[in-house]
């Protein structure tokens, strides 16, 4: 468990309300409800194909919900359009699994890009801000490298620097540790915690890397591919030790489950989490 001061009693910054997601008529997530509090590091976890990235894509407005709504600081991102959507997107930063850095731009230019497009800052100010962001992620020596010249860990850090370029309220990270060696992964976890502490930013992270989840998450939501909804929500250590759902405990302890999925008792862990009453 990380030692960063979380704010579990804080007001919700993101509210997922009875949310349903479909791809081409195929149900992916069914009646998902949860809240993410301001300033917390929140991890979306679950087995492969359970809808983690789908939930993230809806939270950042890339997809429209088939039902329910997702409120970012009170604004429904599924319904927002035009200036309202632009304003909402200005307040979030996203780092994708593969980095999604623009290959024809240097690392510095990648971080400069959102600042150039969204602020009236003069070029030398943009340079200084971009450099400071790259310093925060430890890439001040790679300003003029192209993405193709970066290692996996450097690519993730450059993507993170671009995601925080505009000082967003919320940073979404899709599988930040995927494909990294354990040491680089641990360094990235430490960086996320440091940034969360320094910038007071809310982090929403899709991950199924257990060491990372236990290292950084204030709370974790576990999605289930079979029931297509939330099966557990709470601090990861508490879920691991006390969640009544055996499959959730098996997932968090990396044991093969006795059942084939993280199945019901449906909302069993949620109910416990809501009251904070773990057995």
């Amino acid at each position, binding site marked *: 468990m990380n030692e960063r001061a979380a704010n579990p009693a804080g007001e919700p910054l993101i509210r997922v309300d009875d949310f349903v997601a479909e791809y081409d008529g195929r149900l992916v997530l069914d009646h998902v409800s949860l809240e993410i509090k301001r300033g917390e590091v929140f991890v979306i976890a679950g087995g492969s194909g359970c809808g983690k990235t789908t939930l993230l894509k809806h939270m950042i407005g890339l997809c429209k919900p088939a039902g329910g709504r997702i409120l970012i600081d009170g604004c429904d991102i599924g319904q927002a359009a035009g200036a309202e959507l632009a304003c909402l997107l200005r307040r979030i930063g996203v780092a994708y699994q593969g980095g999604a850095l623009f290959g024809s731009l240097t690392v*510095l230019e990648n971080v400069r890009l959102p600042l150039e497009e969204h602020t*009236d800052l003069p070029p030398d100010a943009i340079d*200084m801000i971009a450099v400071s962001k790259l310093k925060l992620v430890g890439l001040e020596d790679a*300003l003029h490298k192209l993405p193709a010249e970066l290692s996996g860990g450097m690519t993730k850090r450059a993507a993170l620097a671009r995601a925080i370029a*505009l000082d967003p309220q919320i940073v979404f990270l899709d599988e930040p540790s995927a494909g990294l060696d354990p040491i680089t992964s641990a360094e990235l976890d430490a960086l996320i915690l440091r940034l969360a502490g320094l910038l007071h930013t809310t982090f929403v992270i899709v991950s199924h890397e257990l060491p990372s989840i236990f290292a950084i998450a204030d709370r974790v939501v576990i999605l289930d591919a079979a029931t297509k909804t939330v099966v557990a929500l709470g601090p990861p250590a508490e879920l691991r030790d006390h969640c009544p759902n055996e499959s959730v405990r098996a997932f968090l302890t990396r044991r093969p489950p006795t059942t084939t999925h993280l199945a019901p008792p449906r909302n069993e862990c949620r109910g416990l989490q809501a009251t904070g009453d773990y057995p």
Partner: protein
Amino acid sequence: MKNRGVENSIADVEVTAGQDARVILSGRLDAASVAANWARVVEPLRQGRAAATDIDASGVEYCDGAGVGLLIELRRIAARNGGQATIHGLPAKLAPLVEMASLDDPTVCALDPPPPAPVLVRVGRSASELLRDALQMITFTGEVIAALCWAIRHPRQVRWRDVRMVAEKAGVNALPVASLLGALVGAIVAYQTAAPLRNFGADADVYVADIIAVAVLRELGPLITAILAAGRTGSAFAAEVGTMKVTEELDALSTMGLSPVRFLIVPRVLATVLVLPFLCVFVNLISIAGGYAVFASLGYPWATFWRRTLEVVNYVDLLGGLFKMLVFALLVAAIGCQRGLVTKQGPGAVGDSTTRAVVTGIVLIIAADWLLGAAYFRLGI
């Protein structure tokens, strides 16, 4: 020199005669306020060549990345002027962020990209790249020839399903656009030759039929088909194989003990070489039909056109054209695949390979056409 008092002000800047400067920051240091005040804060310090800068940040209520950028720039200016900037009074909750984001040595930060290499070095690199490219082409040619020989010896091991699929894409699917191009080129040649021929006599434009038949069968049919194939098929091969290279599918083939040349290139080359001559015959017929449409508009009957065509061309013209087509087809397929195989990494790499496949393909087609034209002339064909 003192500078203060603009709307949304976050700073008072004072540069004294003794080369010392004092900057008093206050309020919210965010993107909007920093953008509005940047020049007002930074320029006097740059122009005044202030070395020792005292930054009073005790009035700062909020500081985000833009504020940090401003503080870094103030430190850089002081360092460049041979002194240093001292920040004091920064609220405790903001200090760690500024400290973490600040550069240990502000002058080290090289914002300008590295200077380009000297001309001689760049020329050398280009020459080396050309040489490497040529060597790769030679190696690839050898590999393809060896693989085709293997395919002839082991026809059952050729992936004929892939051959059929590629042949359909390269040949059958190209029929509509090949028809359009062929008909238009036939008509254009007829129009362009009819007028000059009339200078040799009122009925001299009857030779339009001769010119169309000879030009299309010996030259235009194969050339149009080849250039069309370079644009459609060669580029598609480069993109397909290049994408497989980028996504490590080629490495997967190699580690499974499968030769990418036999597995991917042989079906593509065979399909192209087998199908393009048929497409060429089709283009020949359509081009001649397009030419005939113009010929008929000049008032000549079909019988005249047919008689003159049969008089002036023979099977050698047709076969000579088809041999050219075979060579062009081999070039188009091989160049497309080779460019795909040498695709580099990065999002623009596949696009570069595709462009190079089309350009190299067309250049080599024209060069081969010239060589074959000269050879036919020497041989009296």
